[in-house]
């Protein structure tokens, strides 16, 4: 998978050189440059995209596109990246402007990209969420794959929940009750997704890995299944490439050292760790809530390093996918049990989009 990842990036890099740089003022992506100072020596990665400060209003994908299910090989644009929740959260209709939240937008470094809610008009389309979603999917276990819309919405709900978790963690005083409720929802979603994936045993079981590891959701949440394959090879290159691709936000130079720690934690190679990795990220959220370490802006990033891994994962789709041996993907894509295929394709598309942003020069 490393190859694939690299290939994607390289393919996108070249045409983007001519793209107008006005989109991302101040972006300092070093494309194809030599190793950035933060990358461990010996890493073969040629890409040193730095995390840019993403101006929330510039990311203008407001019209969500729904993927045509089963259309393997399609590479339409990302479906969900849109105006940052900074704007969404501050719609005056539902929230008296709170001084603490305005700081989020000006916060150096990450700007959260997340689900754009229709501003405060509650819609009936979530009838699907409201009732019996679980049963509906279970009913279709006999028929070939569960309806993709089911997993699509579930996936979007999962992403939204992750964004919320990150968001509340960035605020000055995380509300523990809210965090716990969202975390429980995420756990439940993840369990259901993994159960559903277990129902659709994909043909390439010959690949030899458990269905858990195939799931995009678990990929997004936890690097471990991917890193465990690529971890061995990556270990040779002297460190997980994942952190390198997602370089630290400008305001957190000290985050580099702690980054190694969660990476190491996740390189513990066990298939069951796929869920454990996610668990660990949740744990880290709670640990930091409990911690007494001083929390300056940099300290904030250092402490919540685990969760920010997840944020990065969400943003970049299959960030860990690079370490999966390429054949895993190739075998999957053509046989394409459509739900995983759809998910993969969607995330590939997202990946394209995010890469555009990251690599913009």
């Amino acid at each position, binding site marked *: 998978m490393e190859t694939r990842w690299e290939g994607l990036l390289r393919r996108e890099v070249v045409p983007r050189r001519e793209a107008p740089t006005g989109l991302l003022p101040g972006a300092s992506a070093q494309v194809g440059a030599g190793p950035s100072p933060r990358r461990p020596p010996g890493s073969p990665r040629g890409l040193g995209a730095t995390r840019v400060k993403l101006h929330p209003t510039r990311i203008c994908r407001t019209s969500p596109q729904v993927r045509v299910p089963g259309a393997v090989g399609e590479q339409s644009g990302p479906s969900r990246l849109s105006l940052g929740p900074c704007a969404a*959260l501050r719609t*005056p*209709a*539902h*929230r*008296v*402007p*709170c*001084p*603490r939240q305005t700081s989020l937008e000006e916060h150096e470094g990450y700007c959260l990209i997340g*689900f754009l*809610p*229709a501003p*405060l*008009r*509650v*819609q*009936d*389309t*979530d*009838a699907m*969420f*409201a*009732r*019996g*979603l*679980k*049963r509906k999917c279970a009913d279709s276990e006999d028929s070939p794959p569960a309806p993709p819309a089911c997993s699509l919405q*579930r996936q979007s*709900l999962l992403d*939204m929940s992750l964004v*919320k978790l990150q968001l509340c963690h960035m605020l*000055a*005083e995380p*509300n*523990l*009750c*809210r965090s*716990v*409720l969202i*975390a*429980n*929802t995420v756990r*439940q*979603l993840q369990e259901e997704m993994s159960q559903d994936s277990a129902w659709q045993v994909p043909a390439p079981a010959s690949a030899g890995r458990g269905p858990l590891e195939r799931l995009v959701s678990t990929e997004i949440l936890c690097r471990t299944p991917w890193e465990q394959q690529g971890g061995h090879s990556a270990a040779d290159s002297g460190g997980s490439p994942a952190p390198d691709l997602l370089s630290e936000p400008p305001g957190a130079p000290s985050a580099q050292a702690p980054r190694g720690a969660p990476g190491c934690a996740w390189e513990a190679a066990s298939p069951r760790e796929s869920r454990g990795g996610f*668990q*660990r990220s*949740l*744990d880290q959220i*709670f*640990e930091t*809530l*409990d*911690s*007494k*370490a*001083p*929390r*300056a802006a940099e*300290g904030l990033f250092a402490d919540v390093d685990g969760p920010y891994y997840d944020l990065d994962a969400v943003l970049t789709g299959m960030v860990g996918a690079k370490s999966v041996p390429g054949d895993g993907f190739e075998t999957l894509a053509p046989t394409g049990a459509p739900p995983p295929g759809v998910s993969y394709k969607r995330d590939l598309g997202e990946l394209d989009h995010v890469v555009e942003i990251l690599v913009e020069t």
Partner: protein
Amino acid sequence: MVLQPSERHYRDWSHRRLGPWCSPTGSPAPLSCETGCGEGSWILVCRLLVPTQVSLLSMEEDIDTRKINNSFLRDHSYATEADIISTVEFNHTGELLATGDKGGRVVIFQREQESKNQVHRRGEYNVYSTFQSHEPEFDYLKSLEIEEKINKIRWLPQQNAAYFLLSTNDKTVKLWKVSERDKRPEGYNLKDEEGRLRDPATITTLRVPVLRPMDLMVEATPRRVFANAHTYHINSISVNSDYETYMSADDLRINLWNFEITNQSFNIVDIKPANMEELTEVITAAEFHPHHCNTFVYSSSKGTIRLCDMRASALCDRHTKFFEEPEDPSNRSFFSEIISSISDVKFSHSGRYIMTRDYLTVKVWDLNMENRPIETYQVHDYLRSKLCSLYENDCIFDKFECVWNGSDSVIMTGSYNNFFRMFDRNTKRDVTLEASRENSKPRAILKPRKVCVGGKRRKDEISVDSLDFSKKILHTAWHPSENIIAVAATNNLYIFQDKVN
């Protein structure tokens, strides 16, 4: 603080006789709570805004506080963040009404005394005292700001001329004494009337200071500060029926305090797991039993209520009773757990029932039956299909409170669009009312509102899609003996009373 037996009787609500209530025309009318809330009608008594100016003005002499209130009724359409009311509580006689806001201030209103020539003004509440209870703090160890928002206010029963109340923010509980001063000593020897020291050489005669009447001044002084006992955010405080102790509950722990001792508290409940990774449940509310000083309940984010007896052990981690309703599988969704999280728990005045509020319903439980509630009332079930959107905009995490009326026959809770709902437990009727500026002329009768769920919308109905989710009524209070309610809508406080024609 040992109470004499004769002082205890008023705590026993079952013996309380609910006195007749006079309608504005002067003729006595039965309490609507006896006839049912559907048959009476509610009128607006007054609407109160409390920006800072009121507190300054109320200190002056000869102020017609009604004029102040009316002048502020004129439109201020802005909403300062600091003015948002975060808690409302009547005291035990109903004479005083305390509100706390996000700016850390407490404003106490006093009921206007009935007077013969202005009988229609009885029932109005005017500002009695305003003070800054909590200031914003900074926790240097964690680099976290501690909000000064008042989370809860609880009154102590009155034992002398002064009033005592507990107010709490996220971390610190304070005991405030509110007292009146209407006399002051005059005729000091060493000080002159302005308080300046007199030159002893000029003193030729001695005199005894005498107390002379002065303009009424209400002063609030902090008597105790109970700090540094909570790692997490305090969500509830509850005064015990022995009036010597009280408890404060945060997300994971409950502490028991003695009013006299500020540097120690007992931890009576601790649900923090050894490994924070395993945290799945937090405490959301807690309350002492109104009569049994050894019993309390606490609710959780998983929709369960635990009743604990402090006589059983020092650490009440093992509950005596466990109240949980089995989940309805037909209503299961991803949000089932979030909407089952209990936001408020209240004992009935009789002590026999508890009422819990989760996101969509209010449930009444009998203490003797743990496996399901005896009554369930749907507050805004039309939101059940909108849960995803409500999750997106975070409204699903709103914590609504619920209250009993004095005789435990009617329960009330808030909703969105400035609606609040009342449920009569005896007649099973319910009503939806709105606390809004538009239709709130003083003494105007509130019109019941209705939300239409789809299909044809009748003339006065409002459709679900046009509800304003930024206008939510989270905090309400009911007078302990009369049908007077206080409803907090953002920075406005509405006081309604029941008028039976």
